[in-house]
């Protein structure tokens, strides 16, 4: 009787957990205000990237500025930030790494007066970390554009 009671309890708990999860997920889905776009609610981030941007991201010419912004795809979680941190910090010439998950951006501080890496080298480090470099912007570069957040 004890064991059938335990199985019954397990089945009931299983039903409750399924029901509770379904209610929670339906509540999360329905919490989106009616004037919010689905992309905003789902936290979709799309970078605006041109062919020129993609070509620049593969350049093997050393970066001139001491601060550079990398626009990266695939940064889906906090642990992802840790992976990309570690790979970029190993690149000679990189002094600081700051990851912004809200827009998929990584800001690098390069060592002043020391040889700077190229976008291609940084792109390889980003690939090693498991992500994709789509755009490189040097500080003060003309035409620098941020990621386009979806409209709320």
């Amino acid at each position, binding site marked *: 009787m004890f*064991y059938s009671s*335990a*199985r019954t*309890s*397990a*089945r009931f*708990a*299983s039903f409750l*957990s*399924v029901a*509770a*999860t379904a209610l*929670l*997920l339906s509540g*999360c889905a329905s919490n989106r205000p009616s004037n919010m776009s689905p*992309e905003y*609610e*789902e*936290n*979709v*981030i*799309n*970078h605006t990237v041109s062919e020129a941007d993609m070509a620049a991201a593969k350049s093997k010419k050393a970066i001139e500025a001491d601060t550079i912004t990398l*626009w*990266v*795809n*695939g*940064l*889906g*979680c*906090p*642990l*992802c*930030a*840790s*992976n*990309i*941190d*570690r*790979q970029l910090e*190993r690149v000679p010439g990189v002094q600081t790494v700051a990851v*912004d*998950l*809200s*827009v*998929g951006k990584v800001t690098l501080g390069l060592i002043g007066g020391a040889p700077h890496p190229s976008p291609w080298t940084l792109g390889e480090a980003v*690939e*090693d*970390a*498991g*992500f*994709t470099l789509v755009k490189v912007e040097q500080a003060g570069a003309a035409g620098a554009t941020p*990621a386009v957040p979806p409209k709320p």
Partner: protein
Amino acid sequence: MKTLSVVLLLALASAASAQEAMYTAAATMPSPGVSVVRPQFNYLKFGTNPEDGTQSTDRYQLVTSFQTGIARAWSLTIDFGAAFEDSENAAGNNHLDKGIEDIDLYLKYRFYKNDTGGIDTIRAAVMFGAEFPSGDDADFSSDSVDPHAGVVLTMVRGRHGFNQEIDFRLNTNGAGVDNNGGGEGPSDALRFNSAYLYRIIPDRFTSTSTGAWYITAEMNGIYETNGDTELRWSPGLMYEGTEFAFELMAQFPLYKDLHHRAELDLAIGVGIRLTF
């Protein structure tokens, strides 16, 4: 008087990666030179075993997974575990056992990656390796090298994450092995797991976000070539930071067609992941 039997159980712990629920692998991995340690403590309660007449079994197991990135898109994982088991036979006598189960060693290779947005990605990886004998007796070890191979698909879009895993294990011996939990032999085993992760906090990452809470929901299935089939439902909760993660889950039976081993009544697990 209840006598505790300690049985060493090696559960196939999933590779320790980002966006990964407790019992379903993900097509993610640490980058080269980065390692993740993932100890998990599980309590499992099993019912009647139709083969040996055991009435009930309580199992307490500690499984540790160590995964390291060895090259771009490659990782190596070793899983090892110990367990303590308290079982009661048909006569009402209790038996206590403990030991060390076989060691699982496998590679993971990500052969496909398409990062479609700042957060979004679709990835696929293959896993292949083998379990090696621990040297313990049949209660804990199959005393054979058992290869396994599988494929896993991961998709992340905004707050939603999906993982699909299928893995086949060839048990080359396993006769007489304690097969509570399934897949340890002597029959070959096909595991099929699905996981859904939903980021509940924050609703949107900010420039200073360093952690996130997820609810997880898994369906964990196993089919053995002796005909035993089992499907389990596993809701959970996970916190993922930049250097560590914490996970908590419960597992309940959804479907059972078992004739050769005990069925699971309930499982509760807790674990952490540490990156270094």
